[in-house]
């Protein structure tokens, strides 16, 4: 859990933290790899919603260097397989995600990230 697809659609939402609040940085993580069902249509459909640079850097932080720096124009099967693995099969089970801007720490325990804000962080 906390797959990289999820990581890619989460940003720090503390009060006033509106710039440089994405992507969250992984810290002290332990990861697990779990096979997921491949669905090319789903990947193609989701691609426009991804922040590519954030995905690549998050994958590298977790030790996966299979994705190219630049999002390729040709979505061939080999690329989609790699994207599938990075987006859906890497699970961050423990650790934390830290906001690059306000340094808020979102702990991950048992694969569930705690994204709750403290009292002084809500709008």
């Amino acid at each position: 859990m906390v797959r990289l697809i999820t990581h890619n659609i989460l940003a720090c939402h503390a009060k006033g933290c509106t710039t440089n609040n994405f992507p969250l940085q992984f810290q002290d993580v332990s990861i697990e790899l779990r096979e997921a069902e491949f669905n090319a249509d789903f990947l193609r459909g989701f691609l426009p919603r991804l922040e590519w640079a954030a995905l690549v850097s998050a994958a590298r932080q977790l030790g996966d260097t299979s994705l190219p720096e630049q999002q390729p124009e040709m979505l061939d099967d080999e690329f989609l397989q790699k994207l599938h693995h990075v987006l859906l099969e890497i699970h961050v089970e423990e650790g934390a995600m830290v906001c690059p801007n306000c340094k808020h720490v979102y702990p991950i325990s048992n694969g569930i990230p705690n994204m709750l804000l403290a009292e002084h962080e809500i709008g």
Partner: protein
Amino acid sequence: MLTQYLFVFAQVHDEFRIPELQSVAEIYGFDIKLPDNPEDRKTARPFMVLGLESEEHAKLLARRCVLIKYVCEFYARGRTYEELHQQNRIRAPQWQKYADDTSFKFLVTAFNHTIPQWRQRDVVESFAYMDFQGKIDMKNPEITLACFEEYRDKHGTTRPKDEGDGEFEEVWFGRLIETGSARPLVKKFDVKKRAYYGNTSMEAEMSLLMANQTLAAPGKLVYDPFAGTGSMAYTTAHFGALFFGSDIDGRQMRGKVKPPGIIRAAAQYGVANGIMDLLTFDVTQNPWRCGELFDAIVTDPPYGVRAGAKRLGRKNARPPTEEAPRVHVPRPDDQPYIPPTRPYELSELARDLVLLARYMLRPRGRLVFFLPTVTEEYKEVDIEAMLCGGMEVVANSLQDFGSWGRRLITIRKTTDKKFPPPTFDPAHAVTENVGSHVPAHKDFREKYFQGFKKGDIGGSDSEQQ
């Protein structure tokens, strides 16, 4: 050319029947022609004849609609067997192709009645004019001819066995195409046999009906912002969707032992991989980076009877003049900081949910949620008043509990315009359609505990400040 098909439904949740049919037809991209006569469209009866383009469509419906028991190619109906046979003779071109050497059997059964054996035989013999020459095969026939007698509900009266036999309202006849194979899912997802559940878990049948309203299918992303014990995760994932769940209270999703409860129950159903992620956060303070992420939002929001909805903040907010906020005191690792919460009033929540859905759904995505209402006070405008531009009601089905009920509301996003994220600020609570209308579901919790008596609802104002 449309062919007529006879559908036999389970006589439960009748207001959910047609929305379910239409949703499943939308998933597979075909049309359903409802009966022309409004009498024949009434869902108080279990039989309905629908027009479809192909038998394949009838089968798709039978495999996905939870409320379907049987689907038949429709041959005839009648107030009496004479009427039935007369119509059936006219329809001979439809069944004559089976007359020569197709193995067959008859199914003779009744709704609200049990037909004695000896008369079942009589009924079968009355079809002798069809002159079927094929083998009678009770185990593996090539076709099954089905005859249903429909009786009035005699519930609550004691009577001798077989009394009133033959005094049916109407009798229906057709060739059985498929037995509803989604209906057994109600047993499969039985909450009592689930590895993990809570006191607010949604019953299996309803969570299946809700999943169908979301148009769940492989590769679709479905989100539940009040995920709780994950009732909506299992059924949407069963139909192939990928599920995101969030809840302000992570304990609901986790339970007491590892791995998290929702994952354990999902594994029991073989859909653990359909759970994309579970996250702890308050949906009014959500971390989603952008909108238009999900194909459906489905939820049973807590309405305060067994569990109340909560949002971050304090019940009695301190004046804003306060100095710089105190940084919270660090705690030992095993004691995570738990921020204070305040109640989230139902009508406020419902309106926010529609705004959230407009922001978070892709065009043509659906919001599906339960809204409890006071039966006597409910008006259609209650639902209209919570809509906003670009959102349209597709279905509104009541599950009636007497003095109150809950409505499953299905809303479609009809626009591809982009919208800003909702503010979740009660001060901005001006609905676009119906100014300051007060819906029947406002302060539902208070009304529930006062037994839905008319008059003033006290004690609610202080909670909303």
